[in-house]
């Protein structure tokens, strides 16, 4: 299977998306899943990622933009590994 590409998205691609990246990497490392996790601002998300993780503020816009082609996860609690793990599980990643 090709390596998984995950995009974490926020307004500028350097603040909350980085927090999402750290949270996701933590969970993925624990599950020994190898993935590229990168940060993007909401305007420059490439179309070739396998999964998008974002916060409430950008969720609706991204969902609309990628229109079912790429799954979009919405994380509410940035200090909860459990929420991230649960949502990654629902998306079939872990």
């Amino acid at each position, binding site marked *: 299977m090709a390596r998984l590409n995950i995009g974490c998205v*926020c307004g500028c691609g350097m*603040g909350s998306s*980085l927090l999402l990246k*750290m949270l996701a990497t933590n969970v993925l490392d624990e599950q020994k899943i190898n993935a590229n996790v990168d940060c993007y601002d*909401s305007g420059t998300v490439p179309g070739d990622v396998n999964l998008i993780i974002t*916060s409430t503020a950008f969720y609706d*816009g991204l969902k609309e933009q990628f229109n079912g082609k790429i799954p979009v996860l919405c994380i509410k609690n940035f200090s909860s590994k459990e929420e991230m793990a649960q949502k990654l599980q629902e998306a079939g990643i872990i």
Partner: protein
Amino acid sequence: MEILQIVGNIIVSQILTKTEIVMSLISLVGLVLLKKPVEKIVSGVIKTYIGVTIFTLGLNSVQAAVGVFTNMFANLITGGQGLENAIRVPVNFSAAETGAMAGYMLLIGYVVNILIARFTKIKMIYLTGHWSFFMAQFIAACVMNYLGLTGAAPIIIGGIILGIYQAVFPYILQPYTAKLTGGLPMALGHGASFFALIASVIAPKIGNPEKNMEDIEVPDRLSFLKEIVVTLSLTMMGMYLILALFNGQAYMETISGGQNWILFALFQGLLFSGSYMVLLYGIRSFLAEITPAFQGISTRLVSGAIPAFDGPVFFQYGNTSLIIGFITSTIFSALGMVVLMQMNLPVPIMMVNVENFFGGGITAIYANKFGGRRAAIICAALYGFLTTIVRALYFPMIVPELEWAQIACDADQAVVVTLIGYVGKLLGLAKYAW
């Protein structure tokens, strides 16, 4: 011995004073402490170096666009005496020099932050790397250029101030943040935190939390404003256009290089936005290496730490407040600009509409929580106006970082840098009158 001296000189003057190197060293230290494999260390260090390089390229490009703005601004307030009258305080250092010093401060700031969290009851770990970096840059510019201090001592003092800032500002806001999040273990680590505090304190007195802003639906179509590149481009085109119209065709044609003067102004606004996006890309690249290292180390050393997160993490507590707060603070920030234009300041100040989104939004979200929609609008208006005019106090102190300061200043920078500047002035250290 002479060889050693030459090598030593090269290391000190050409390697350890280069921002790219300093930041790479920070990520090297972090990655080694986290016992990462060699290939991760190599790629992390290189990505950090290149990230800072991209950042610098973006900044140079922003400077070009800011230069045009400065010309227009100067022409307007000096009645045609030109650029040399736009900055009328001494610029003794370059942004490269203050930037390297800021890198060391960042490192010391991280250490101090961890020590405070480890040994006091202030358990905050500041995870918003870009705000730490901005703060370090402005502290460095203030101590070097305004107070004329260089060498180890100011780096250490500046680093300690930065570390205290990172631990204490999220901490004093935490009672309110906890109410906002319903008690989640997370704090706000963002340049607007001081204003969020002001808003939380005054909101109950000027409004009613029952009348919640979030009960109002904003039209879905307004959500395009959340895309920073769109908002920024629109505002900057507006800014350049207004200044161009005030300056008039005759003057504009002297700087537009043959281009139609209106188009020239609009293109400059777009150039600014494009350059800003390059900057962001650079910052993103080096923070992606440094912040996880800091987080990894701090979670090993501090039990029960509360991470201080960037503002957008809290946008989920007020989507409507965010948009209304942004629009309100933009309008009042523009009013603040009008006031600044009358003040004949020794430095040009421009309105870059980024923090009105993040800071104005956060202010409105906190104010709405504790005082409803009326408080949200009043506090966002105060935010826009005050964080704009307060720049008159401290921008003349940080001239080496002036271009950058136009973009990345918020309430906390105003408080901390102004305090440092004025304390230094009271101690008789000020190098020039301000």
